[in-house]
């Protein structure tokens, strides 16, 4: 299985290539990119240079243009696609059907991957994208179980890529409005969930308080591992109880299920984290690569060290192994 690794800067891109990534995914420094964070991402020139470096090492580059086009501003996305194709991207990761249609028509030779943001989660939806736009790979939503993935795999005509490690978005992908509700900005339209412009951390006695816009998201007592102020991972007062309503501050880790994913027909494993630093990218990619090359019984100790780099310092297998609480 291929290892698909994140890069938010050219420095992280180099680290990912050097650490053994089979492909690196990245995006432009604008709203075409679902990780449109301040100071992050690639200029046109940086992308060109990074792709050249990757090619020299036999690594592929996937360019994510994975937000939904704004009516009247489609040119921004079309230009992004044109520049990514001209730079030699090995694949474009797209979420918007209009953009998929544009790319399929203008650049029929360009490999097209369906972004997780498109929320294509059943064979009919996926095969429609294959037939209509010649999609060659689908990144599956993180809402599916491994059994679901195996069932889908038997009935589709393209490759499957799944998230195995990193930040966990727990909703039906591309359809969460929590961030929009609280801040007016969403990952689907603006490339940011719970944007930094609306985040505040403050100390209250020994507690660390995280706020998003008008809302208090969490209060971490001294010594407790902290998390991002994403609404889905907030600790809320609900009736008489106080706790995590949707999900704890945790990260995804299904590396323990590699054999099951392989048996389900998964072609590529994706690491989330374009917003993380190059030290994270280097450590996670090299560890995961070593784990992939090790026999199953040797993987757990290798991967254990990654837990300390995860949100809340905890990991979960998320929906892949669904258990209800």
């Amino acid at each position, binding site marked *: 299985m291929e290892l698909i690794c994140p890069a*938010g800067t050219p420095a992280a891109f180099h680290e990912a290539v050097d650490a053994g990534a089979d492909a690196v995914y990245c995006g432009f420094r604008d709203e075409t990119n679902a990780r449109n964070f*301040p*100071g992050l991402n690639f200029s046109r020139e940086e992308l060109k240079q990074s792709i050249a470096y990757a090619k020299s090492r036999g690594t592929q580059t996937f360019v994510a243009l994975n937000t939904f086009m704004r009516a009247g501003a489609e040119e921004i996305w079309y230009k992004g696609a044109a520049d990514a194709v001209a730079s030699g991207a090995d694949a474009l990761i797209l979420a918007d059907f209009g953009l998929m249609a544009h790319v399929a028509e203008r650049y029929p030779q360009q490999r097209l991957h369906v972004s997780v943001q498109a929320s294509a989660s059943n064979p009919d939806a996926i095969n429609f994208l294959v037939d209509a736009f010649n999609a060659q790979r689908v990144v599956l939503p993180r809402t599916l179980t491994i059994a679901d993935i195996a069932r889908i795999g038997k009935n589709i005509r393209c490759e499957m890529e799944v998230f195995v490690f990193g930040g966990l978005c727990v909703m039906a992908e591309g359809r969460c409005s929590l961030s929009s509700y609280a801040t007016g900005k969403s990952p689907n339209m603006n490339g940011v969930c719970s944007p*930094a412009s609306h985040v505040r951390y*403050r100390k209250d006695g020994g507690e660390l308080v995280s706020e998003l816009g008008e809302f208090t998201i969490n209060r971490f007592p001294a010594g407790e*591992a902290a998390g991002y102020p994403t609404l889905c991972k907030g600790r809320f007062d609900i009736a008489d109880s106080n706790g995590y309503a949707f999900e704890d501050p945790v990260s995804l880790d299904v590396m323990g299920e590699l054999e099951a994913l392989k048996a389900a027909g998964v072609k590529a494993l994706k690491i989330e984290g374009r917003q*993380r630093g190059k030290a994270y990218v280097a450590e996670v990619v090299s560890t995961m690569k070593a784990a992939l090359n090790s026999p199953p019984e040797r993987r757990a100790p290798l991967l254990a060290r990654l837990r300390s780099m995860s949100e809340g310092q905890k990991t979960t297998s998320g929906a892949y192994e669904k258990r209800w609480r």
Partner: protein
Amino acid sequence: MQIPPILSAPLHMIPIPLIERICRLMFGRIAKAHPGLFERLDEHREKRFAFLPTDLPLAFVVVPGRQEISVLRKPVDVVADCVTEAPLFLLLALMEGRCDADALFFSRDLSVTGDMEAMLAMRNALDASNIDLQKDLAKLAGPFAPIARRVIGEVRDRALKDQMRPAGEAAAWN
């Protein structure tokens, strides 16, 4: 790795203008070696970024767009758009992108308050810059550059090794 009080204590005596001069020299050297350093900051360039090493009696406030750095003696109420607090070696490791800022934040080794957008832009700008303090600063030592390079390298390796150690196994200073 924390700087022990016995090593940080002399900083109480050294006049602030002298520390400030040394810091400006180092800042200038790094800015010269990495001319595109703050390009990623965009509209945050003129903001005031405060860095408070938890193991030093000093605070540093940087305005990147003006290449300005000021040093204040603690305790002080810093006036800044955003404030980052961590032991000095972690702040330096972050500057070089050798540690992951988010992981340090999750483990509460690092705390950030204030304008998060500016802070994130700064984190990303530093992470993208390939700063290497050993290489960038050793030249300031003139004829002693090779010695300075070795000392900086050794201290850095030791601090990083200490950081990677599992919790509860912190190394002693000597």
